[in-house]
């Protein structure tokens, strides 16, 4: 289905919007996570959601996959009204949207290959136990995706024996296993060292370009966002405060989304430090999370 549409409709689809978020508000108790956020993404776009920790990036992404229901507003993905879908149709839609997590979210005790195969669950029916629960064609496809992310040799290792960068590549392979039309990534490199970060980001972009995928990826590193995305969408306190092509955008301009206008290099440095510490907080949160 995906192949069909991408081959025949490329020209017309270029203008079609595959993600349509209109005026979405979401609160958790007293916390307003999203405050009337709107966003429209066309097929094949590579969009970065930029914002400090707590600005609502994860919440927005989770809405796109129907993992969260909006208090008000609508979310339409691939023509489906995600916010009102349930059951089989919701699962079918989720199958067409790949999700890459900050914490990878692999099953640690399963092999890498089994983890990738779970990406096919939307297409098969019923529970699958072990490798042999999936047919040969699926296993071969999973190996293909593993090869694509450079981990074919690790196919039968336990997921928790891999490094962080490798685990995230397995996470990518799992998302690819869905044959997705859209790839959502929630701070995919926030838990990785700089070198693995670069590898993973490059890989996501490469695959997206190859397969003509639409990508929405949240990040909080301004430099990375500017060099990686085609379009930057800035979030602050759950509101979209910036939406512009990345090309030609300066770092200083982006800093405005954090509520300041940088005038001196010293101030720029100060904000950079703040960003770093925001990143560190994220990591601490992540550790606390994994400890639970």
């Amino acid at each position, binding site marked *: 289905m995906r192949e069909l549409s991408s081959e025949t409709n490329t020209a017309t689809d270029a203008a079609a919007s595959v993600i349509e978020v209109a005026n979405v508000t979401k609160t958790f108790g007293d916390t307003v996570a999203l405050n009337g956020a709107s966003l429209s993404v066309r097929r094949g776009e590579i969009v970065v959601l930029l914002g400090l920790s707590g600005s609502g990036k994860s919440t927005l992404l989770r809405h796109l996959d129907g993992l969260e229901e909006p208090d008000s507003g609508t979310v339409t993905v691939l023509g489906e009204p995600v916010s009102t879908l349930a059951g089989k149709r919701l699962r079918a839609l989720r199958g067409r949207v790949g999700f890459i997590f900050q914490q990878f979210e692999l099953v640690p005790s399963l092999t890498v290959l089994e983890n990738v195969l779970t990406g096919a669950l939307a297409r098969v029916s019923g529970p699958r136990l072990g490798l042999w629960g999936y047919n040969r064609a699926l296993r071969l496809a999973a190996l293909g995706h593993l090869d694509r992310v450079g981990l074919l040799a690790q*196919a039968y290792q336990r997921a928790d024996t891999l490094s962080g960068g490798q685990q995230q590549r397995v996470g990518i392979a799992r998302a690819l296993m869905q044959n997705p039309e859209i790839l959502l990534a929630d701070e995919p490199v926030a838990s990785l060292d700089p070198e693995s970060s670069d590898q993973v980001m490059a890989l996501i972009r490469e695959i997206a370009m190859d397969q003509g995928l639409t990508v929405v990826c949240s990040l909080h590193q301004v430099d990375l966002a500017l060099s990686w995305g085609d379009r930057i969408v800035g979030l602050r306190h759950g509101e979209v405060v910036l939406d512009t092509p990345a090309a030609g955008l300066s770092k200083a301009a982006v800093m405005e989304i954090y509520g300041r206008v940088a005038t001196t290099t010293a101030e720029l440095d100060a904000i950079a430090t703040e960003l770093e510490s925001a990143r560190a907080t994220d990591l601490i949160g992540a550790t606390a999370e994994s400890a639970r």
Partner: protein
Amino acid sequence: MTLTAARPRAAARSGRPSGGAGDRGTLEARAPRRRLSPEKIAAGLTLVALVVASVVSLVSIDISIPQMIESWGNAQNFFERVGVISFPEPGDLLYLTALTVGLVLCGTLFAAFFSVPIAFLAAANTTPGRGWMVAGRFAGVFFRAVPDVVLAMVFVLMFSLGSLPGILAIGIHSIGMISKMFADAIEQIDEGPRLAIRAAGGTTLQEFTSGILPQVLPSWVATVLHRNDINLRGSVILGYVGVVGLGLEMSYAFKSLDYSLGLGIALIIFALCVVMEIVSSVVRTAMLGFAPTRRSLGDRLLRRLGMRGRRVDPADTSAASAALARKMSRADARTAALRRPWDAARRRNTVWGWAAGLVIIGSVLISDIQWGDFVTFWGYLPETAAKFWPPSFGSYDAPTMIAAMGETIAIALAATILTIIASIVIGSLAARNVAPSPRVRSGMRLVLVSIRGIPEIILAIVLIVVTGLGTQAGTIALAIGGIGLLGKLLADSLEEVKPGPEQALTAAGASRLQVYAGATAPQGMKALIGHSFYMLDTNIRAATILGLVGGGGVGYFLLNAGQGSRYDLVTTIVVMILVTVLVVEALAMWMRRVFR
């Protein structure tokens, strides 16, 4: 999920001065709740009351050491009468041993099978609704509350003699503990992988099989093995109500005053329990010791034997890398990778899998289950049910029975307090992070394993012979038997505390004892309270059972009622036990909630 990181910030924000409230108001608003809630005070007082009641029970039971020394004469007499210990014929012995193990295993597996759906309903994160959750949790409590002996008594009536009454009694009773532990394990999983499967479009069932099951499996296997150990020890007493196996032979021997054979069988059962304990600990370690985990005694042993999962290095024997090295085409390399290499992990899994399969098949075969009974059973059902209903006090009156129940509770309370005191010492010393040296730890662990190996009932028989019939014997038997379990649970809990605070105190120059008192023990306190209630709960049922061999309390009446075919009285006693256990369980749940 980001909740933990974000909450304090949010709290701090909302706590900012809103006007001229002044410094004090701000501070108060921002300070974490430190005041004790009335509920916490009530729970604390209940705990104190329970401790006082336990001490009073202990005093009233009047365990006097001089008297015990005096009664040493009894023991001498006894052993003179025993003479040389004798055993059954080797062939018989082998068959009886296999039958006992097989029957117990079948019962445990029966329980494990039915515990899966119950646990799914009972776990907060998988339950389809709050009502289901309460029902699932209650099912667990209910099954646990009915002693397996009582179930066996009932089933022996319903089925032709054979292994089936034993299997069903063990199975149904074990669902209680197993379903609870299964549910607790589900509640402790990392939700991430499960969320990932939901995000990929998986169904609830797929979330369970692919996201939850792999995470809980090691813990589930450990639970089943642990329960199997308990059931093996418990199978001795089942023999007293007619369930086949070593227990039945032992009860025959003692009833015909053949103490020499009785003690011989007791010795065999003890050895069997120890062997089983070792086997399950090996299996447990082989499963859990896969990921880089503890440096336990068993772990070290296994590592030396080369059974531990190793980190597979990239240059592993995998077909894929070999193929790549030979510069195969990509497609060929992928096809080649379809064949899973026989690496250490796969070899081990295969061997364990086959071994487990064979043991299970063997158990079913040796148990020689009379499947036909399941058909004829329905015919007996109305008749049998009529015998048990309506409940009555029989030839006794209510005060007598209530006093007997009171005595059983007193035994349980007294035994529990003795167990707690001993377990705090032994259990702490058996924890890696508390023991002054690995040798002390190993020694204490050995003590705990040995105690766990002694079925309470054997201990009770010996003690009854030594101290004469009575409640003292029962109390001491339970207290000693409990140390094996509570000591182990406590040691494990202490080893699982977060090492951070300990390191912080050590770094601040605290002594070993200070680290224990300041960092380790406080973190283990919650576990101690939880485990102690579990102990009390176990002890109430065990105290009942001990009555069957003359340990005092309501068990004595239960035995008489069963043997005298007064099944309406059996029902009364069972209901009394049920109510008591449910009350204890409710208290335990309350404590766990309050002292979270």
